[in-house]
């Protein structure tokens, strides 16, 4: 089973919370937390690599969004030394809240990885630089 390491850079909890979908969420450290529609932080999800070619298509997976989601940007990128696809998506709940999901998808160490930086859009300017910097420290190994 592959493992990952990332540098929390003093803004994220070192120990993640495991969410229902199996992803490991490194929440913001307590002093940085603020009320919002989502738990801000950086999550890491490792899944088995699908055997079919369609399932291995990172771009197709990245661009498949839900009805309440708005795709803002995507590009080829690199993370953990591997080619990745980065997307920037807004999840909109009418006027009640907008949550940002900045995600990197990659295949590494025999697994498919999804790394997600998330925060309320109103907090994004304050949090995005740190979340992106922490994501950039990701390392994975088999």
């Amino acid at each position, binding site marked *: 089973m592959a493992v990952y390491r990332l540098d929390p850079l003093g803004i994220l909890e070192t120990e993640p919370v495991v969410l229902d979908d199996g992803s490991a969420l490194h929440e913001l450290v307590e002093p940085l937390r603020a009320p919002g529609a989502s738990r801000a932080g950086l999550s890491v999800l490792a899944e088995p690599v699908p055997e079919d070619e369609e399932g291995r298509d990172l771009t197709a997976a990245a661009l498949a969004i839900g009805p309440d989601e708005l795709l803002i*940007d995507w590009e080829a990128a690199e993370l953990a030394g591997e080619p990745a696809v980065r997307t920037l998506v807004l999840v909109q709940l009418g*006027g*009640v809240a907008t949550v940002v999901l900045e995600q990197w998808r990659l295949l590494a160490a025999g697994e498919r990885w999804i790394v997600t930086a998330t925060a309320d859009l109103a907090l994004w300017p*304050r949090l995005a*630089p740190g979340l992106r910097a922490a994501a950039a420290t990701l390392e994975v190994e088999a």
Partner: protein
Amino acid sequence: MSGGAGHDRTGASDGAPARGVVVDPERAEVRGSPEAIRAFLAGADEPDPPLLAAGLRAARAPLARFRVSGLKEPLEALVDGHAAVLVLPAGGGETALRACTPSGLLGLLVRAVGLCPRPRAAGGPVVVDVARMARIVTERTAADAGLDERDEERLQAHLDALAGHWRIEGHAPGIGWYLEVLDSELGLWTVEDRPEKHLTLTPTDATAVLDELAALPGHVGLGPQA
């Protein structure tokens, strides 16, 4: 007064009825003729849900105003530190006030300007005279923009594929900020003032535009600074 479920044509202000205002609790929205909306805002009525009440407080005592131009119809938002209302045309000459949280408002602004994935425009910024900008945009021509041949071709290609030209202005007492974008199928360029009546047109990408749009409230003293 509480809006209750469904749509109520009601509105009491300081005990006096404000005729012709519809409260839509599900959408956290009030709508009516501009006169009825003005009368409603002159009162102190705060219908449920709490988001609508908070938005109306922002509308009555805004700390900042945002205005979006370049759309089919201009859009305005009144904001305080907790909530906002978006002022929308509601059809039939009516105006709607839709209450939003700060992040809800930003999301609605993103949707309104149609920010979406665009190719990353190559090259560096170009500088044009303010006086020439109106012609550049309205006639979609880079001719006589005072650019060298390469930059003129680059700007002309961008203008030929132009999908929109929008600007969001934020104003608070003593401070103002704006984000202006030339959006084309070939990419996004920001438009920024520079000294001596010139403008800088800078190729950018949708991620940078979203980051800057999200930072607008902070630039006018609301919410977290970037």
